[in-house]
């Protein structure tokens, strides 16, 4: 009895060791890759941010000089931070309001609704460069579609991307157009997860449509909204493609974002150390904003 028991436990142990080995073996290629392409670069980027490095000569340790310069003596960095924050602050509320309205609108089983959902999602699957090119043409001051339509209404011509006061808002408008489809799908999934009996109970209590939205839909969608805000912060704070392709940061630095500044400093001026410091400050801002958001929503949810 005891002999057969120990034999079976021997085999069990062997099987467990084998699974363990296989587990490591299967994970190894991915883990090694993530180590080389994510973790080591994060560490070396942090190191570079404390150096003066132009690629051609070896990095020179300068301590916190890059950070001090950026935070206290660099007008363009401060401008880029302000532009990026303003951009995010304009994009996020518009995006949330419109995408939620769209989700409520397409959350019905009407004939042909799938076609509308598809149409609203089309800008999301189009590359940012293609979208930029299309909107560059729409925004064209003389022959662009938007000014043609405005001209019919007796307005304009508006210099969408050429005016320092307007260029950032024009980028916001395009980003909202491109982004609402994505959040609509997420809100749609959230809406379909709300149990129907809540609405039925509210109807028995005589709740109006607006009341149902305010006391059921909106609170039940809180986790989704929180997710959308965090993801929105992460993506809007990294805005680069449209700036590079449409405005080049101008006019008069009015559309220079932090991500664009990283690119400019690193790959146009070859100030790799300083660019790394900009990247880490960007990372810090994103992290803090996300954590604040998570804390805020957790206290509100409990």
């Amino acid at each position: 009895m005891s002999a057969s028991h120990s034999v079976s436990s021997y085999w069990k142990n062997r099987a467990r060791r084998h699974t363990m080995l296989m587990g490591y073996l299967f994970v190894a290629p991915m883990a090694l890759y993530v180590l080389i392409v994510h973790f080591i670069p994060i560490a070396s980027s942090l190191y570079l941010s404390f150096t003066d490095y132009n690629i051609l000569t070896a990095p020179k340790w300068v301590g916190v000089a890059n950070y001090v310069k950026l935070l206290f003596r660099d007008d363009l960095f401060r401008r880029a931070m302000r532009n990026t924050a303003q951009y995010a602050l304009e994009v996020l509320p518009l995006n949330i309001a419109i995408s939620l309205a769209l989700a409520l609108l397409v959350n019905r089983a009407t004939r042909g609704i799938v076609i509308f959902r598809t149409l609203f999602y089309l800008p999301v699957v189009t590359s940012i460069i293609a979208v930029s090119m299309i909107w560059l043409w729409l925004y064209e001051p003389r022959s662009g579609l938007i000014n043609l339509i405005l001209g019919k209404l007796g307005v304009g011509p508006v210099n969408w991307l050429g005016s320092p006061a307007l260029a950032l808002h024009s980028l916001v408008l395009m980003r909202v157009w491109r982004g609402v489809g994505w959040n609509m799908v997420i809100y749609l999934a959230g809406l379909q997860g709300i149990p129907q009996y809540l609405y039925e109970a509210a109807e028995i209590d005589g709740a109006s449509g607006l009341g149902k939205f305010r006391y059921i839909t909106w609170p039940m969608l809180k986790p989704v909204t929180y997710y959308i805000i965090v993801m929105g912060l992460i993506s809007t704070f990294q805005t680069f493609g449209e700036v590079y392709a449409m405005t080049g940061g101008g006019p008069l630095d009015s559309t220079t974002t932090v991500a664009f500044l990283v690119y400019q400093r690193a790959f146009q001026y070859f100030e790799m150390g300083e660019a790394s410091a900009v990247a880490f400050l960007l990372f810090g801002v994103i992290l803090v904003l996300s954590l604040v958001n998570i804390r805020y929503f957790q206290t509100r949810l409990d």
Partner: protein
Amino acid sequence: MRDVRQEICGSRRWNTPGPHSRASLERRRARLRRALAGAAVYVVLAAIAIVMAGPFAWMLMSSFKPNQELFAYPPVWIPTKITFEHFVNAFRYTNFARYFLNSAVVSVTATLLNLFFCSLAGYSFARLDFPGKSLIFFAVLATMMIPVYVTLIPLFILVRRFPLAGGNNLSGQNGTGLINTYWGLILPYIVSVFGVFLTRQFFTSIPTEINDAARVDGASEFTIYSKIYLPLSRPVLATLAIFSFTGVWDDFLWPLVITNSEHMRTVQLGLQIFRSQFLVDWGPLMAATLVVTLPVLLIFIFNQRHFVKGVVTTGLKG
């Protein structure tokens, strides 16, 4: 003499909801209201659809419009004559065919590598037990939070100083490394953390009894993974393939940083060629944008449920 009411209500008894009774009137009114509300919804939907699809329609029409109609005032909304000159020019005067080939090579290779490495790791995380598993899993997931700009510069240096490539010596000097090569272009796309997460989530939904039965039959773990799990996971693999392909096809920053040779550009970079500082060649630019966008649009339109599944899985269960 017949009751007036009966006259109105026909031969039916009072109170029975006939075609003209109060109850039926109310019902008809409600039905009418519903129909009107339904129609209003369609009107709103159509208006939004025009805003969302309008820019695409304008791109489409602009790429088939002859130049004089492209810049005509008053504007020509729909081309009176369809021309292919912009497409011909886009491909004749630029290297666009080559950019297309580059993008296809990079996107397809990256997608295949992704499918294999992500699902292999996903299987391990879902079905195999080993010490440190959850630590590794969350460490890998956490990288999704890191902005690409943090790793961009070291990755560029890694590619440039890649040992024994592009004339480099063992310590990565003297040459250009993997800059302007396909491997350099593919490097950051080989394993997507999103894909590891996606496959792992799907694999955990497959009943473990399958593993036990296969192990009793003497199947190795790799056989279980490749002969049982992969075939069962076609939908999620399709989702991953679509996301990898479109992600790589659409990416702009990495090819911008890692290529400077005209021959190694990808399509997204190639679009920049129609613009110089002061002049934009709108016709060919719109034609080329259409061609660049078309593969992804077609993939999306024919695989919508996979797109939605990917968004929802990573969006809500994360």
